[in-house]
């Protein structure tokens, strides 16, 4: 059902309603038939593609390569890292069967009880576990390091209250997962990506951000240190726009990823992960737009100039 909004609710009246009206009226995204999941419409997606293109360029310029890992993760993988499982268990979508069949008592489809999976699969909320399980096969010696990989993907995290772009059950993002021979090198990588994110936010999105680290309470589940960029929205609320994690040897230990170092000794591999998501769209909209509607920075605008013949 297409609904034409005559005008936006003003920011002073109801900021939250203003945001929602704007996303709809600017034709960026809409709610879908699936609870908590949004449809990103072509104009919204065009902005996201510009965000992607620039970030992808910046990742490659800093030595990273793209790869792709499975959407599904065996349930047992998640529990390998104690803090990680605690942080994500309550948000996971679980696949239990692999087939439907005709309901013998009716006309609809039912889950085929015969098709129960031996081990349940979770839909990735983030990919540290499947990736570190994979890295075990890639890394034997310090010569195999560093691994500097990024993945563009969708992830799913159950959310109670969702808002277009800001918090949706399924969202698009990139997740970098790097493996290093030394602690210092991994910390350097996590910090480097923090600065890549901050540069992107400020120079392309024109969104000023604070660079910092999270308190232990707010850290990523399984991280030793979480670096973050924080933006300020026009209603006085903060928005976490990107995070970069120094994971220590936690995932290497959980997935038994060891390597022979230069001193010919066996050691666990050091890790980082870092990500930004379609949440950036929310930050972009809320930072610049006004009561007349969307304001975009020229660097990310799909249309920079419109010619109006009178």
């Amino acid at each position, binding site marked *: 059902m297409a609904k034409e909004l005559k005008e936006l609710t003003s920011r002073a009246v109801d900021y939250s309603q203003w945001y929602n009206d704007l996303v709809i009226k600017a034709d960026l995204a809409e709610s879908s038939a699936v609870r908590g999941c949004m449809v990103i419409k072509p104009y919204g997606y065009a902005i996201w593609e510009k965000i992607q293109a620039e970030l992808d360029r910046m990742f490659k310029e800093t030595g990273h390569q793209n790869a792709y890992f499975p959407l599904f993760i065996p349930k047992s993988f998640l529990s390998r890292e104690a803090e990680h499982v605690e942080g994500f268990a309550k948000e996971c979508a679980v696949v239990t069967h692999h087939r439907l069949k005709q309901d013998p008592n009716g006309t609809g489809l039912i889950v085929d009880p015969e098709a129960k999976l031996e081990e349940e699969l979770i839909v990735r909320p983030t990919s540290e576990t499947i990736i570190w399980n994979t890295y075990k096969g890639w890394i034997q010696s310090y010569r195999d390091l560093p691994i500097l990989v990024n993945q563009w993907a969708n992830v799913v995290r159950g959310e109670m209250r969702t*808002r277009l772009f*800001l*918090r949706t059950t399924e969202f698009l993002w990139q997740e970098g997962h790097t493996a290093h021979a030394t602690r210092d090198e991994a910390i350097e990588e996590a910090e480097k990506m*923090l600065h890549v994110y901050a540069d992107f936010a*400020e120079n392309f999105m*024109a*969104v*000023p951000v*604070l*660079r*910092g*680290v*999270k*308190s*232990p*309470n*707010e850290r990523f589940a399984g991280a030793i240190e979480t*670096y*973050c960029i*924080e933006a*300020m*929205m*026009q*209603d*006085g*609320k*903060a*928005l*976490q726009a990107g995070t970069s994690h120094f994971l220590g040897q936690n995932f290497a230990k959980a997935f038994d990823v060891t390597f022979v170092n230069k001193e010919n000794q066996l050691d666990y591999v050091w890790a980082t992960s870092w990500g930004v998501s379609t949440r950036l769209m*929310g930050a972009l909209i809320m*930072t*610049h737009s006004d009561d*007349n509607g969307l*304001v975009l*920075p*020229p*660097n990310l605008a799909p249309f*920079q*100039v419109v*010619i*109006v*013949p*009178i």
Partner: protein
Amino acid sequence: MGARDLENGTVEIARRDTLTKETVAMEGVEQYISDLLKEIQHNIFKKAVDFRTSVTREVNSYDEFKVEIEKGGFLLCHWDGTAETEEFIKNETKATIRCIPVDGEVDPGFCMVTGKPSTRRVVFARAY
């Protein structure tokens, strides 16, 4: 652009960020617009920085904090570094520590809740 603009060799340019209009010569308009786009990029960033500056302030007591947090923005406060104090503040005010800045000056003081020593101010806010 209209018939009169064509006659005069001009074009009227409206900016989305400032909502201002001006008439410029058609000749050299490509360069003018290219510069203007850079100017808009710069201007909206500056506007956002100025806004952030206007809602960022130091708060020294917890009583003051409870009043200020209602107004929004970033509050720079001393915190004793414990999860308990952070949790207490979150439960009472819905504010969380957004980050412990990695740059900027170190300014020792005392936690606004417990009075214990703190090495630097951290950034509190309510968040999305």
